[in-house]
């Protein structure tokens, strides 16, 4: 049982995340890769900016991983999240989950990204041609 949680301001290394969770004891790995879309509600996105409250974000992500290990029989989990300016097509988040059986890997990976989006103090600003907006800030 191990979890590697990181916030990085350089391009995330997807292969590294996958290799880190691979193990002879595992039969299935589920990987979620977030990517920056070129559109939000039909509007062209130029780029995103991610800001994190790093210490707390790491601690909240660690809690999510701990909870996933409690709930499913997992072998290992990697969560890497970007900060800084990301262009369309770049990768804000990679989550890799390895388990003996695929059910656990799929369910835990889904749980981790869903919960991360709800509780981890990281903020995303969308930059459009005609302005910018902090996502989810306003009702």
């Amino acid at each position: 049982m191990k979890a590697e949680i990181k916030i990085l301001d350089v391009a995330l290394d997807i292969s590294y995340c996958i290799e880190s969770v691979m193990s002879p004891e595992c039969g299935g790995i589920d990987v979620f890769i977030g990517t920056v879309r070129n559109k939000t509600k039909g509007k062209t996105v130029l780029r995103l900016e991610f800001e994190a409250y790093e210490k707390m974000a790491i601690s909240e992500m660690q809690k999510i991983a701990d909870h996933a290990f409690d709930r499913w029989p997992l072998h290992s989990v990697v969560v890497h999240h970007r900060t800084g300016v990301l262009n369309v097509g770049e990768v804000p988040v990679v989550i890799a989950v390895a388990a003996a059986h695929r059910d656990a890997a799929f369910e835990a990976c889904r749980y981790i990204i869903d919960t991360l989006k709800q509780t981890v103090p990281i903020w995303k600003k969308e930059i459009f041609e005609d302005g910018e907006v902090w996502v989810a800030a306003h009702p």
Partner: protein
Amino acid sequence: MTIEVLAFGIVKDIFGRSSMPVELDEPSVAALKKLLEQKYPRLKQIASYMIAVNNEYAGAEQPINMHDEVAIIPPVSGG
């Protein structure tokens, strides 16, 4: 008691800075929120916000001590 409050995302824009000294008469999360909303009415226009004390989400009744790390957490949007 003066505490330093950290701001992120839209709250940083509202404060115009990433960290702000606040003079607290009553050292609780509820009192801090009330004070901030008086000083920055725009805080009431955002969808919601939480207070974190020492890197943990804090309830309204939680006390705040002198050397606590206090942060305003607007709606998160990571991932």
